[in-house]
């Protein structure tokens, strides 16, 4: 099942490792949105944005593993700075180059309906302030950065 490494203070990162399976994406959403609302003063709509971006990154990570590799794991890492928080999602799949993804036709083009996939990355880019895809030793790491007000001293997990 999931392994949650907790942190002693707000400065310490938190890691969550989940099996690379679709049913665990809800857990990742739950943990990240709980951390965001407990540790930072972020408006609810921004927490929703982060939650969706993390969900998209996890979905992408799980799909990178393909259907047969159910033993694989996805590693989420939460870290914070004074004015930012970062969630990275790392898979051990075969890698993803966003530049290789086909462009969607304009929404007014009837051909647009032929594209059911590929909305995840544009969503991530709109929802958080920075999105980076980097190759890692295991696979691909997606980093999602959101700028936000400094953590208050009175906030405890």
């Amino acid at each position, binding site marked *: 099942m999931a392994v949650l490494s907790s942190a002693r203070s707000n400065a310490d990162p938190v890691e969550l490792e989940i099996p690379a399976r679709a049913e665990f994406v*809800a857990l990742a959403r739950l943990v990240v949105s709980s951390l965001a609302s407990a540790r930072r003063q972020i408006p609810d709509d921004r927490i929703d944005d982060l939650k969706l971006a993390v969900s998209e990154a996890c979905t992408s990570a799980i799909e990178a593993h393909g259907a047969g590799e159910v033993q694989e794991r996805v590693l989420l890492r939460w870290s914070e700075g004074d004015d930012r928080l970062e969630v990275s999602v790392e898979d051990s799949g075969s890698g993803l180059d966003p530049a290789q993804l086909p462009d969607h036709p304009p929404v007014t083009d009837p051909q647009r309906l032929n594209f059911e996939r590929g909305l995840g990355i544009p969503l991530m880019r709109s929802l958080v302030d920075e999105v980076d895809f980097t190759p890692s030793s295991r696979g691909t790491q997606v980093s999602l950065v959101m700028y936000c007000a400094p953590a208050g001293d009175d906030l405890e997990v």
Partner: protein
Amino acid sequence: MADARLAPTEGPLAKHREGCFNMDLSLDVAERNDYTVLAVHGEVDVYTAPRLRERLVELVSQGKHQIVVDLEGVDFLDSTGLGVLVGGLKRLRSHDGDLTLVCTQPRILKVFEITGLTKVFAIHESVEAATAG
């Protein structure tokens, strides 16, 4: 919200409690005027979206070609869910039908706005408006 006057063509689906995170998705079908209303409750993501896709495919194969998907009970919708709706619309258009949406929740509408899909789907404020005329 669900309209109490709707006559369900089948009983509400038992809520699924699969896995350990209460990933509930319920799909309730009702007929209203000449439309089939599919009311979705819960979270639509990579795990639950296949059930929504199956239900839509099933309705189309039953000859239901004017489908209204009511998203007012949806707490979370990601790109997988959007993909299923786009796929449903494509399938219906090929039968000269249509798939329209009911959605007033800002956080769900935002997902359609970001992806430009507000220009692809007719989005109504209520089931009444979506099934009028």
